[in-house]
């Protein structure tokens, strides 16, 4: 008895942030998942991330915003009886019975360093910093891997063609989880390529937005100097208070 309730508490604890107030009835439904080869029974309505925590894993990597924005919780899994290897964000994907999974806490791929201001607005910027884009065989595995459902292959192709606008359009929602790169047979780091492309487009391709121009002007005219000095002078507790009391959209 007591153990059950205490367990229930643990569940609701660990899942409150997402499943707002677990209804105990739900826990009638259990599924078995395999994390790195070991089986666990977990409540059916948990996300992969919460299920891992439920199973006792303490996530120090592969866990960020828990809202599907930061791209930190890349996960690869296979569904029961499926041959396809699927990819997703752990915080956005609900567990299924028989699911077998592991997280990809980090994708090794170093981003080239460049000075956007100094680069020529041409396809050669990719040849120079990511020449391996030319190895793309159009296998489309990247697109299949993208948890954001981006047409990754298309934006890589856009990079090869030197079409910055198309690249930007296609890659705008990239969260840099790196799943495309980890699956790419041509060993391209698509998300880095996309970032370079977007930066180039931002600087040379797209029209400069009004409000940005104004705000920069305001800053340059020193309109915010006072406020900034005030912050710089503030104590840690003061800052904490200010942070808690800040204006923000409700969750």
């Amino acid at each position: 008895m007591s153990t059950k309730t205490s367990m229930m508490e643990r569940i609701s604890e660990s899942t409150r942030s997402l499943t707002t107030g677990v209804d105990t009835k739900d826990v009638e439904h259990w599924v078995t998942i395999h994390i790195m080869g070991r089986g666990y029974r977990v409540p059916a309505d948990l996300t992969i991330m919460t299920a891992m925590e439920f199973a006792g894993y303490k996530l120090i990597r592969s866990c960020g915003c828990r809202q599907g924005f930061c791209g930190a919780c890349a996960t690869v899994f296979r569904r029961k009886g499926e041959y396809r290897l699927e990819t997703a964000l752990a915080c956005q994907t609900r567990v299924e019975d028989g699911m077998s999974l592991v997280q990809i806490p980090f994708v090794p791929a170093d981003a080239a360093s460049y000075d956007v201001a100094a680069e020529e607005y041409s396809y050669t910027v990719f040849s120079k910093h990511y020449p391996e884009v030319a190895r793309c065989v159009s296998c489309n595995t990247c697109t299949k891997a993208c948890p954001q459902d981006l047409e990754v292959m298309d934006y890589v192709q856009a990079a090869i063609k030197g079409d910055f606008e198309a690249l930007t359009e296609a890659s705008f929602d990239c969260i840099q989880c790196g799943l495309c790169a980890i699956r790419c047979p041509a060993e391209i780091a698509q998300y880095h390529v996309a970032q370079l492309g977007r930066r180039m487009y931002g600087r040379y391709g797209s029209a400069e937005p009004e409000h940005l121009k104004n705000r920069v002007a305001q800053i340059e005219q020193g309109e915010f100097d006072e406020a900034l000095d005030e912050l710089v002078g503030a104590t840690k507790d003061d800052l904490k208070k200010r942070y808690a009391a800040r204006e923000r959209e409700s969750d």
Partner: protein
Amino acid sequence: MTQDKASRARGDRREAGSGGTRLPYYPGCTLKTTARNLEDSALAVARALGIELVELPRWNCCGVVASLTDDDLMRHLAPLRNLIRVQEANAAGIVEDEMRLVTLCSMCFNTLKRTNARVAERPEDLEKLNDLMYKEEDYEGGVEVVHFLEILREIDPETIRRNVKRPLEGLKVAPYYGCTLLRPKEIGIDDPERPTAQDDIIRELGAEVVDNPRKTVCCGSYQTVANKDAVADLAYDILTHARAAGADVLTTFCPLCAFNLDNRQREVAARHPDFEHMPVLYLTQLMALAFGLGEEACRFDLNFVDPAGVLEASQLVKEES
């Protein structure tokens, strides 16, 4: 009936120039950047001849050069996707029941046609590839990859002559073919040793055809990346033979040949003090010039060796320059 004959047969039926032939068109990456002079001139010329080249939506890099090992299927994916685009373009009504895919870049032509041939003769491979691309519709195998030069060859010479506003009198042109337009035999569009496909057109433009003994010799292709000097020496050999044969300019259809023969003239000159520069043009640029389609069609600005000198000498670009 060979593909080549077939396409000609079809060509005869819809005589291009007799108004509004719409053909699916595959540009290839380089035509969007350094070889814009090929694309712009070709599209303009085509339009003048009543052909509209309709760019395929969502085309991707063909993955030049064709994969040659027996078991390496993955490298056929890239070409194959573009063939599927032709199906889609027909389904979407972008073109009407037109399975000929026109290419401008000889290397893309070769790569696409070889993959098309491979899956035609090895259905089991096509099945595998279709299966791999499960997010795409299956390739049914109906596409016929043709090169723009084949289309031009189909056109009634009269139609071309009618379009010539400024005959290229006195201009000596050495047509260059290189490799991928001719070889291997089953892919090539002309006699691999003695090609003539460009000759008639050049004559119809009023220019003189010069027989360059090196017109089918490889320019060094992608070796230009790792063996600049070797490529420069090949370019030297090809261009000096053209020169010796009396040519003013060389024409090609391949952006890589163009790069190796035109841009690499810098290296050539560095290695061979006796070297005289020679303009290397896309045939379509010459056509655009003769058709009087203007600088935006000719795009001589993108040629490394400026043809202006030679063309002025032949009184051809007065108002341009």
